[in-house]
């Protein structure tokens, strides 16, 4: 054991040796150096070339997204490949996908915070940012997929000349409230965490413009301990509130399907299954972002191998939950003795969309298994690759659920297939563009690591512990 400890390279803190507590911040950083490391990213005149390149690409895809949406709104939903019976396709697939991505952020922040998982501090900030941006992408799709966008506000319970009110029995309305709430709360949670760090940047600011901009955002935070007192309490409460919220959001999203009557949708397993899937996909996305970020922005000491490894373990665990759900769905379809249900699942695995189904199974169930090996868990390249696979797999999961069911429901006379048009494909790519554009802007202008929190878990400079 001791030998092993000695042999382990110094930058590796992924030990599970209970005898020795691995540090969460490496290379003997102190408060100043952490601040310096994090703030430099925001303060340097010229961003890294990688950032500029990535931003250019992302921004141009965002532009494409804009054009696609414009085309859609001016011409009609018919520009998509949807039909009767498949009247949801890429649109809702993307919606559920992005909402799922949006789970890891708040989950890491809230649940890990409640469980006092200190390693969260390294990653929670940009995990939360990821949540916000993912949810923005998610909200885009239900926003544009309706036939008459200009009347969409009717979904909100606003007093109107028709004296009509929305129908609260509709899962879509639950969605509206769930995702809306989730977005608002996540935003508040994120911003609240940002305030002290923005204050730091404000105080380091060298130009008037920055001082004013960050000054406004910092809301006059001055690290007063009387403030910290209420701040911490409020933060704890938010975490406590956000935790059930995270779980509720994807449950409600799954109600869109679970409360319908279609074979393959009408299933009680959906809420837990969707939540597990969301955490799975969300963590995969965090990994996908964390690996290159720590590389490009030199924050390897703060987002340490241990962080990555912990997330890999979560991906492995949730991945197997998802795999279990796939299996049990088949069992139930058979066990229920409902022939229509049975056919839908046989059709999923062997019908016209079998390719999508098996892609999903491979990506979500097979690939994460490599994380059983520590070598894989500590190799950024492997981690990144698996993360990408999982994201693909999770997208296909939603596609399979939506399209295979709709294309083969009760009456064979109305069976049909669904093929997306170029508009839908470009819109999907565009949504990634939007996501990365926002994320890159965040990296450039806001502290990507929660400095205050990291400092709080660093050993005190003079070694002596508080009473």
């Amino acid at each position, binding site marked *: 054991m001791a030998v092993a400890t000695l042999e382990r390279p110094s930058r590796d803190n992924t030990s599970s040796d209970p005898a020795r507590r691995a540090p969460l911040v490496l290379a003997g950083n*102190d*408060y*100043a150096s952490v*601040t310096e490391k994090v703030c430099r990213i925001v303060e340097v005149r010229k961003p890294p070339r990688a950032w500029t390149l990535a931003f250019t690409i992302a921004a141009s895809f965002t532009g494409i997204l804009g054009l696609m949406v414009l085309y859609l709104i001016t011409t009609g939903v018919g520009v998509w490949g949807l039909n009767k019976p498949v009247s949801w396709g890429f649109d809702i697939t993307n919606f559920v996908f992005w909402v799922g991505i949006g789970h890891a952020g708040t989950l890491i922040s809230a649940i890990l915070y409640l469980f006092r998982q200190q390693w969260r501090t390294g990653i929670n900030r940009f995990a939360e940012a990821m949540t916000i941006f993912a949810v923005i992408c998610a909200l885009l799709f239900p926003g544009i997929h309706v036939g008459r966008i200009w009347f969409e506000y009717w979904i909100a*319970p606003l007093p109107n000349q028709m*004296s*009509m*009110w929305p*129908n*609260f*029995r509709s899962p879509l*309305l*639950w969605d509206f*409230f*769930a995702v*809306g*709430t989730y977005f*608002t*709360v996540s935003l*508040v949670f994120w911003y*609240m965490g940002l305030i002290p760090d923005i204050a*730091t940047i404000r*105080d*380091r600011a060298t130009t008037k413009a920055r001082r004013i901009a960050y000054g*406004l955002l910092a*809301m*006059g*935070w*001055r*690290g*007063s*301990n*009387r*403030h*910290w*007192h*209420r*701040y*911490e*309490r*409020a933060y704890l*409460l*938010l975490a406590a*509130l*956000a935790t*059930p*919220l995270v779980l*509720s959001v994807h449950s409600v999203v799954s*109600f869109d399907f679970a409360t319908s009557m279609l074979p393959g949708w009408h299933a009680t397993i959906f809420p837990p299954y969707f939540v597990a899937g969301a955490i799975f996909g969300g963590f995969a996305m965090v990994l996908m972002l964390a690996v290159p970020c720590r590389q490009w922005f030199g924050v390897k000491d703060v987002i340490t191998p241990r962080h990555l490894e912990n997330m890999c373990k979560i991906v492995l665990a949730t991945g197997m939950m998802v795999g279990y759900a796939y299996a049990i769905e088949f069992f139930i379809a058979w066990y229920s003795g409902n022939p229509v249900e049975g056919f839908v699942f046989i059709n999923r695995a062997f019908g016209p969309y079998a390719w999508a189904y098996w892609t999903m199974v491979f990506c979500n169930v097979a690939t994460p298994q490599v994380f059983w090996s520590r070598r894989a868990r500590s190799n950024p390249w492997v981690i990144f690759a698996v993360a990408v696979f999982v994201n693909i797999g999770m997208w296909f999961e939603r596609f399979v659920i939506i399209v295979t069911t709709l294309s083969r429901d009760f009456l064979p006379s109305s069976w049909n297939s669904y093929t997306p048009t170029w508009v839908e494909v470009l819109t999907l790519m565009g949504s990634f563009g939007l996501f990365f554009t926002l994320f890159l802007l965040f990296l450039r202008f806001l502290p990507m690591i929660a*400095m*205050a*929190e990291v*400092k709080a878990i660093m050993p*005190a*400079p*003079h070694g*002596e*512990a*508080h*009473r």
Partner: protein
Amino acid sequence: MTWGLLAEFAGPAELVSAAERLRDGGYTRWDAHTPFPVHGLDAAMGIRPTRLPWLVLGAGICGCGGGLLMQWWMNAVAYPLIVSGKPFNSLPASIPVAFELTILLASLTAFGAMMVANGLPRFRHPLFASREFLRATTDAFFIAVEAADPKFDLEATEAALRALGASRVVRVEGDA
């Protein structure tokens, strides 16, 4: 005129012990400024627990009740419609929205109440004027005693702070 004194301490531990003694010294209008929440400092300063949680609880209850009430009124009273042959008012269908509204109101209250109680946003403050104070959000640990404190006496207090182990003490000009 002088707003007060700003004393810097080497680290969290020093700050905490200083705070305790300052508290025992009977000072009331003073505060500590740290780059991150320091454990034990609240007790050391003798801060009473905030009533924030009760506010949040109240907000949550309002959200839940309001949500249920809204749905009942809109779907069963204001404009009842036969939907899928279901009853005009049915609790199961109302639960998701009621739940979300509970969370929403509670969360917004938690944040809002915290800001209000902290008197934020506040963009002008004498402390912002002092150069040293800029490091308060990076790696410096301060105690600020206001001139408005009844026990405040420029020389005496300054001496006291130094006695507490302040690495340095500066005067902060301006009026709150």
